[in-house]
């Protein structure tokens, strides 16, 4: 490092008096420096020199914040006019002033300061305190302290330290005042291990190697509990040596000194040179920070020992600018033969630009250890009390924890610009986050990157989460139950519960920590559990692990965690009313489903849906193409043994695939009915990765007309059809293309022939909904259809098979029941929101049940939706109730025969009444019949043929893309 660079990284050590750009001040200073006898001309020259120096130094240090082109959010009181009346309100706006911006005096580059200021921005209601903190750090400010009082977890010490970190790369020391004598801020008793910490290092080494003498171990275990941690076997895990070098109480230092002296002797360390061990008094943190020109935080100041800060009053007077000099004596000097300074004098002219002290305190309601400060301290430190968090604060902190950027607050202040150009806004957010990530030394986590790309989802979901957390916090705050409409919780929520389980910002951290990792997921309670009883004690061979993008089900995991937490913190401990209220609050906030007051499903997305984000949702076509390329190449390699190329680029470039996806993306396939599949032609796939396909629907050939003739080679293979569904863009476009109105046309024709009077109004409405489900036009978003594709089984035999598709377009989810697919496609299906079930898998029905529950969740009546889906399924598929029940061994062939006999005898009743007869005859109950014929049973039935086949066929007439 050059001398110049070194100087510039220590600019905060510049004396404040050398930074003040004020002629009057500098003239006074010049006069003081030159002495009373100096001439006026000499003083003026010196003043000019000092002014020039101050300007240059300031220019090097000042980083403006809140300028016209880079506004900074600010919260504060403003008069707002409503209907001609002016009201004082707290509003979120910006500071955008080129002449008088906020200023950060920092050694860090501008980009780093900006990234920290925006990414780590305090919550809106704390912004005025942040602003105040910056003002007090200016060179001309003589008050070098800021004291904040607030609830635990509000972010007080974080904000104090953050302001320090914005200014310097040096860490900000945080001194925990809890239970301590505040005189130790000035002079403290410490252990002196010498320059190289030789003795602690030697003890650590032996501890790790397990070579410490038993007696030494026993002695070390007696060290003050704050300095030693133990493992589960009560063996010493670590010793916090730094604790004895600053921060320990004098009696703890004395105890440690005696113990370590013995250990040193037992271990023979006292004989080795360099193993110094002494006890000294030294400057405490306040004096050290002053001398070193750095920032410090005095945390939990009002938890310090009662009365112990009486001697600090003169120091506070100096630090807040009331006095310019203050001398303090060392009461520890010569105590117990210790060395150390006898006194220290704080002088205004010695104060450096980097010096600042933040004090934090908890509200006095927070437990017995928190004390009320005496009047003189209040008067000198003028503590600022943090307001209770608003919903905007909750939202801000939720966004920060999820994405590393307070997206909601930034959106609030730049709303018009963000709505006008969402992509640019997203890129700006990402730029801020990436700059911050450089300071963290690691890339931006993939989940955060995905969420920032989908920042609208973050804004929407965080708003709902904020509402819920805010209500949860109110319900668990015993002190405010009466004023927050939670009087009914008085019996369940007391002060003790509030202290233990009250909701503060820290809880968001805990919940997110629990939601981030991908964990095993519990199946729905009605899912069938099947076990391999015969081999139960043998370790199972697991299926190939499917990679899962952490963001694909992040929303589900987070809402699952909240469901669990709400139960554990209320119902599980006997707080029934609280549980009911919390459940209602979750529903109202729309965590899992958005249901309107009239019971209708809303098109608004729930928190779960908004935060389940996949690359398929990405607005960046480059990302989609990169994901598609991976699926494409993995698939081609797996299914085509002739392709052994390891380099994806040599199979297909991302750029080429991107162009193909862009072309597909522009198609309206719901109209054109075009499908796209992976091109398997070796010669052309590198240039034209996607081949074309279309649907040949036998229902579109009325009876008597000539059907199209299809050969085996015309029909798209099961694998290729499935692989296309695993490609971003293509998947959605293909799912748009497979719907038709042929069944309605045909059925209406048949109905007319069978029932010339037509159905009654109820029947008509129900039938209409079922037709809509076959056509993908249901307002509930659910739809189902069946396609025929070609499948080659393990023996090489080819035949056409059904692929059943159940869709919920509102939730962008699909269930596909078919044959086994190449394993490489499975993780891509998850990304695509597709649940694939191999109909031959042992637990296929349970998986289908779970998927159907998920797909119908949030509809007006999920059970009815499932029945409608089953009816819609039967329109397309060749479902014969009697044969089906016999095949499933639900009834015997004899029982079926008897029922059909009854039908024949019963005035020519049609087969459609077979269910009524079976129930009447007592063969099955209605419930059993419903269970045996439910949709999951039908979907996994591999013998189910189609009434009107819908083939997916290759469209060779159109060129590949």
């Amino acid at each position, binding site marked *: 490092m050059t001398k110049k660079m070194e100087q510039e990284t220590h600019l905060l050590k510049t004396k404040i008096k050398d930074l003040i750009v004020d002629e009057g001040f500098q003239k006074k200073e010049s006069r003081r420096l030159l002495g009373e006898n100096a001439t006026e001309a000499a003083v003026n020259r010196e003043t000019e020199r000092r002014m020039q120096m101050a300007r240059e130094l300031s220019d090097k240090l000042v980083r403006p914040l809140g300028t016209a082109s880079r506004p900074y959010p600010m919260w504060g009181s403003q008069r707002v006019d409503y209907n001609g009346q002016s009201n004082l309100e707290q509003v979120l706006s910006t500071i955008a002033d080129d002449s008088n911006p906020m200023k950060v005096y920092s050694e860090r580059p501008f980009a780093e300061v900006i990234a920290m200021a925006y990414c780590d921005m305090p919550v809106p209601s704390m912004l005025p305190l942040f602003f105040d903190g910056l003002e007090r750090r200016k060179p001309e400010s003589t008050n070098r302290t800021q004291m904040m009082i607030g609830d635990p977890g509000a972010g007080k010490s*974080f904000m104090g330290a953050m302001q320090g970190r914005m200014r310097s790369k040096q860490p900000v020391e945080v001194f925990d005042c809890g239970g301590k004598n505040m005189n130790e801020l000035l002079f403290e008793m410490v252990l002196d291990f010498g320059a190289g910490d030789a003795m602690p290092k030697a003890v*650590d080494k032996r501890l790790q190697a397990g070579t410490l003498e038993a007696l030494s171990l026993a002695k070390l275990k007696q060290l003050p509990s704050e300095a030693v941690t133990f493992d589960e076997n009560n063996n010493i895990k*670590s010793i916090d040596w730094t604790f004895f070098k600053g921060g320990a109480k004098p009696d703890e230092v004395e105890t440690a000194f005696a113990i370590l002296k013995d250990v040193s002797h037992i271990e023979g360390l006292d004989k080795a040179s360099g193993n110094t061990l002494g006890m000294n008094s030294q400057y405490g943190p306040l004096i050290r920070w002053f001398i070193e020109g750095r920032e410090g935080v005095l945390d939990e100041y009002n938890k310090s020992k009662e009365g112990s800060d009486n001697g600090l009053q003169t120091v506070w007077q100096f630090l807040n600018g009331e006095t310019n000099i203050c001398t303090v004596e060392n009461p520890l000097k010569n105590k117990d033969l210790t060395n150390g300074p006898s006194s220290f004098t704080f002088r205004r002219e010695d104060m450096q630009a980097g010096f600042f002290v933040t004090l934090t305190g908890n509200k006095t309601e927070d437990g017995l250890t928190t004390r009320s400060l005496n009047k003189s301290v209040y008067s000198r430190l003028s503590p600022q009390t943090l307001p209770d968090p608003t919903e905007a604060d909750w939202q801000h902190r939720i966004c920060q924890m999820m994405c590393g950027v307070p997206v909601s607050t930034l959106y609030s202040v730049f709303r018009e610009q963000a709505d006008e150009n969402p992509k640019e806004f997203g890129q700006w957010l990402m730029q801020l986050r990436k700059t911050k990530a450089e300071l*963290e*030394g690691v890339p931006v*986590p993939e989940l955060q990157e995905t969420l920032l790309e989908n920042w609208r989802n973050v804004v929407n979901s965080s708003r709902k989460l904020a509402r819920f957390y805010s209500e949860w916090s109110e319900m668990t705050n015993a002190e405010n139950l009466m004023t927050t409409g939670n009087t009914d919780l008085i019996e369940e929520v007391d002060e003790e519960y509030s202290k233990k389980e009250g909701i503060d910002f820290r809880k968001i*951290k805990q919940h997110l920590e629990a939601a981030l*990792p991908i964990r095993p997921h519990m199946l729905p309670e009605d899912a069938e559990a099947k076990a391999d009883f015969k081999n139960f004690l043998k370790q199972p061979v697991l299926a190939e692990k499917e990679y899962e993008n952490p963001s694909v089900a992040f929303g589900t995991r987070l809402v699952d965690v909240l469901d669990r937490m709400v139960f554990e913190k209320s119902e599980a401990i006997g707080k029934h009313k609280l549980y009911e209220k919390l459940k209602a609050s979750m529903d109202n906030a729309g965590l899992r489903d958005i249901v309107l007051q009239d019971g209708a499903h809303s098109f608004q997305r729930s928190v779960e849906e908004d935060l389940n984000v996949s690359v398929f949702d990405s607005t960046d076509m480059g990302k989609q193409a990169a994901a598609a390329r991976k699926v494409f190449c993995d698939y081609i390699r797996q299914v085509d043994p002739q392709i052994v190329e390891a380099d994806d680029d040599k199979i297909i470039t991302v750029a080429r695939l991107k162009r193909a996806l862009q072309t597909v993306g522009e198609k309206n396939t719901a109209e054109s009915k075009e499908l796209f599949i992976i091109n398997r032609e070796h010669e052309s796939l590198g240039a034209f990765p996607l081949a074309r396909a279309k649907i040949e629907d036998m229902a579109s050939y009325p009876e008597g007309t000539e059907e199209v003739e299809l050969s085996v080679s015309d029909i798209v293979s099961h694998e290729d059809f499935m692989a296309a569904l695993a490609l971003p863009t293509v998947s959605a476009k293909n799912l748009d293309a497979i719907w038709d109105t042929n069944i309605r046309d045909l059925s209406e024709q048949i109905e007319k022939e069978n029932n010339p009077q037509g159905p009654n109004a109820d029947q008509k409405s129900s039938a209409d909904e079922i037709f809509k489900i076959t056509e993908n036009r249901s307002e509930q978003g659910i739809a189902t259809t069946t396609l025929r594709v070609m499948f080659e089984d393990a023996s090489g035999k080819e035949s056409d098979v059904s692929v059943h598709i159940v869709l919920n377009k509102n939730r962008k989810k699909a269930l596909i029941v078919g044959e086994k697919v190449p394993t490489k496609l499975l993780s891509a299906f998850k990304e695509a929101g597709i649940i694939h079930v191999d109909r031959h898998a042992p637990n296929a029905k349970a998986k289908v049940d779970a998927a159907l529950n998920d797909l119908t969740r949030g509809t007006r009546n999920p059970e009815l939706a499932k029945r409608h889906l089953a009816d819609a399924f039967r329109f397309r598929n060749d479902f014969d109730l009697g044969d089906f029940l016999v095949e499933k061994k639900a009834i015997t062939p004899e029982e079926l025969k008897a029922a059909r006999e009854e039908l024949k005898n019963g005035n020519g009743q049609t087969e459609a009444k077979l269910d009524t007869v079976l129930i009447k005859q007592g063969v099955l109950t209605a419930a059993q019949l419903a269970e045996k014929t439910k949709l999951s049973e039908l979907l996994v039935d591999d013998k189910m043929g189609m009434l009107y086949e819908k083939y997916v066929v290759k469209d060779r007439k159109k060129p590949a893309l």
Partner: protein
Amino acid sequence: MTGQGHNVPPDLLEKTASVAAQQNAMERGCKFLPHGCRLFPVEQGWESTAISRDKSVSVVGTLLELEEAMRDPDVKVVFIPLDAMMTDADIEKICQRNAAVRTFFREVKKGG
């Protein structure tokens, strides 16, 4: 390995492996520590080896070393080996008293 692979400087290979390992670990979730620090568990194996070999990563085995890493402004990423003499609570305590942003990768037993 392809011919091109032989030309890649070993340092770059190690760095690339470390970045990949860090990204993998970051996908598996983290513990949020005071002052913006984050602790990512990394399973013992190639990932932990790659991170520990990265020259830009500071490896700490004791609390004294951890404290030193927290106070060194040039350190951004810290690796804590499986046998390090510290608990998660120790790490949290040291982050609390040295408010500096650091990213921690802590080696954990496979499946642990």
